[in-house]
C-alpha cells in the first residue's frame, strides 16, 4: 500500500510486520517515535508482542538478549547517547550470537548538546560484532528493517543487525512509503540454541585462553559469510517485492572519473550533485555505502574518490575515508561534513568534487578552499 510516512514510522511498520515476540525500549529521550509507534500497535492489538518499557538502554538491550536467549525474535530502537549507554550489552548480544535487530537513529553526541544527524554514534559500536546497514530513504528504512531480521536469523550469520537512519533528516522527514504484505518472508522464528525454559539450569560461560579466540574467530567467519547471505536476502527481496538493494547504491558510476562516497541522506543528496556536475562536463558518479559491517568490497579502481564523512575519529581521520583507503589502496580526498546536522547541500557536495585535493582532508566550514 502506497502511503506517506516518516522514517521513524517506516521502521515501526516494518517491525509490526516482523512480529517480534519482545520489544524492549527505554521510552524517554534520546528515544524516538519508533518505539512510541510500536507501543501503540501493541496497545491497540495490532501487534501481539511483549512490550517491555525499561529503565535504561542498557536494560533495553539486556531484555532483548534475555528474550532472544529464550528463543524469540527481539527488537529495540535507540539513538546517540542511548546507544552508547547500552555499549556493554551491544557487545554481549553479538558474542552470545543473538539475532537481535535494533534501529539506531544516528545523532550527534554531546557536549555540545546537539540532537542532529551524525554517524559517530554507530561507528563507536564498530567492533562489537553487529552488522550495520545505513539507509537513505524512508522506503529503505522499511525494507532494510524487514531484511535485517532475515539476515540476522540466518544460521550462517546469527549476529545482531543495526539499521541506521539519519536523525531528523530521515527520522522526521515525510516521504512516500510502499508497504507490502510480507507473506512468509519472515516466518515465525525460534533461536536454534535457545535455552530450555521448562528445565531451568545455570551455566558458567567461562571461556579460557585456550578457547576464547575460537569464539571470536567464529564471529568473524560469520561476518564473512554474512556478505553472501545479505546478497541472497536482498535478491529474494527484489524477486518478491521488486525493490533492489546491494552493498552500495551506485549512481552514474560506470564511466565516472571521480566518485563521491557517502552514507545515509548525504549519499542520496550526492546524486543531485552528480547530475549538476555531469551538466558541467565533469564525469562524476556517486556510491552510497549501505553496509558498514561487514564492510563491502568496493570497485573503485582507477577512479578519483571523494569521501564525505559524517563522523570523525579524533587523532586519526574520517572513518569512512580511512576504511576505503585501507580496503582499496586509493587515497581519497576526505571531506568531513554534516557533523551534528551541519547543513550540507547538493551544491556543497558538487563543490567538494570541483575543488577536490586528492590525499588531503578538509573540514567543511573550517578550511577556506571548500
Amino acid at each position, binding site marked *: 500500500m502506497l502511503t506517506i510516512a516518516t522514517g521513524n514510522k517506516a521502521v515501526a511498520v516494518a517491525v509490526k510486520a516482523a512480529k517480534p515476540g519482545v520489544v524492549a525500549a527505554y521510552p524517554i529521550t534520546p528515544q524516538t517515535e519508533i518505539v512510541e509507534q510500536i507501543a501503540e500497535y501493541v496497545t491497540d492489538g495490532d501487534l501481539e508482542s511483549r512490550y517491555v518499557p525499561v529503565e535504561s538502554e542498557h536494560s533495553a538491550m539486556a531484555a532483548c538478549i534475555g528474550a532472544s536467549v529464550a528463543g524469540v525474535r527481539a527488537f529495540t530502537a535507540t539513538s546517540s547517547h542511548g546507544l552508547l549507554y547500552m555499549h556493554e550489552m551491544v557487545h554481549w548480544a553479538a558474542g552470545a550470537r543473538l539475532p537481535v535487530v535494533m534501529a539506531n537513529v544516528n545523532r550527534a553526541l554531546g557536549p555540545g548538546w546537539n540532537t542532529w544527524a551524525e554517524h559517530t554514534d554507530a561507528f563507536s559500536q564498530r567492533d562489537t560484532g553487529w552488522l550495520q546497514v545505513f539507509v537513505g530513504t524512508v522506503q529503505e528504512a522499511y525494507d532494510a528493517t524487514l531484511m535485517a531480521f532475515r539476515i540476522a536469523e540466518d544460521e550462517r550469520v546469527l549476529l545482531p543487525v543495526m539499521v541506521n537512519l539519519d536523525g531528523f533528516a530521515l527520522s522526521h522527514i*515525510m516521504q512516500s512509503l510502499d508497504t507490502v504484505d510480507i507473506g512468509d518472508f519472515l516466518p515465525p522464528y525460534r533461536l536454534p540454541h535457545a535455552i530450555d525454559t521448562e528445565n531451568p539450569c545455570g551455566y558458567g560461560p567461562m571461556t579460557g585462553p585456550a578457547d576464547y579466540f575460537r569464539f571470536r574467530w567464529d564471529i568473524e567467519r560469520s561476518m564473512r559469510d554474512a556478505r553472501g547471505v545479505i546478497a541472497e536476502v536482498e535478491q529474494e527481496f527484489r524477486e518478491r517485492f521488486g525493490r533492489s538493494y546491494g552493498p552500495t547504491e551506485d549512481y552514474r558510476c560506470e564511466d565516472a572519473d571521480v566518485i563521491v562516497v557517502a552514507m545515509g541522506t548525504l549519499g542520496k543528496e550526492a546524486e543531485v550533485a552528480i547530475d549538476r556536475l555531469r551538466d558541467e562536463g565533469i564525469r562524476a558518479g556517486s556510491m552510497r555505502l549501505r553496509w558498514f559491517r561487514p564492510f563491502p568490497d568496493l570497485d573503485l579502481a582507477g577512479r578519483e574518490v571523494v569521501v564525505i564523512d559524517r563522523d570523525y575519529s579524533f587523532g586519526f581521520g574520517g572513518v569512512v575515508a580511512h576504511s576505503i583507503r585501507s580496503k582499496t589502496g586509493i587515497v581519497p580526498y576526505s571531506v568531513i561534513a554534516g557533523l551534528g546536522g551541519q*547543513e550540507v*547541500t547538493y551544491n556543497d557536495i558538487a563543490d567538494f568534487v570541483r575543488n577536490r585535493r586528492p590525499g588531503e582532508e578538509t573540514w567543511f566550514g573550517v578550511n577556506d578552499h571548500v
Partner: protein
Amino acid sequence: MYEIRIHSRGGQGGVTAAKLLALAAFRDGKYATACPFYGAERRGAPVVSFVRIDGEPIKIYSQIHEPDLVIVLDTSIMDVVDVLQGLKTDGTVLLNSAHPLPGCNGASLHVDLTGIALATNLVVAGSPILNTPVLGALAKMGIVTLPSAEKAIREMFADERNVKAAKVAYEELKA
C-alpha cells in the same frame, strides 16, 4: 520542483501544515517531502518547515534556501526573521493576515486564517488552528487540488470543522 518554506511559531501547527501539504500533494499523485527544521523548540519560538513537491522522487534532504513560496502563519515573526530571504524573484508570499502588509510587494497574497479559525470555532487550548485552513488557501493557489486537500485533512483529523475552515479559506483567498 516546487519548494515551500513555512514560517510559524512553536505550537501554531506549522510542522503539521507541512505534513498536510505533503500528504495532499501525494494524494494528487505527486512526490512530496515534508521536513521540519527542529531546533530548541518551545512554544512561541520561530520555527520553519520545508515542503518539496515534484513529479519525480525527491533526493534532497537539505533545507530550502531559495523557495518558490513562503508561507507566514504569524506575521509578527517578520520583525525577527527575514522570511523573504532567498525567495525566488518570481516567487510568492502567502501571509496569514486580513490585510496586505507593506514590504511584501510583488506576488504577495493574504488571507485571514486566524479569523477563519475563530469564526469556525477551530480553537484548541485557546489557540486558533491555522494548519488546516491554510490548506484551502494553497488549493486556491493551485499548489494542491481542493479534493486532495480535503482528503489529507480528513486522514489526519476527524473534526469536520477543519475541512470547513479550509473551504472558507479557499473562498476568501483572492488568488
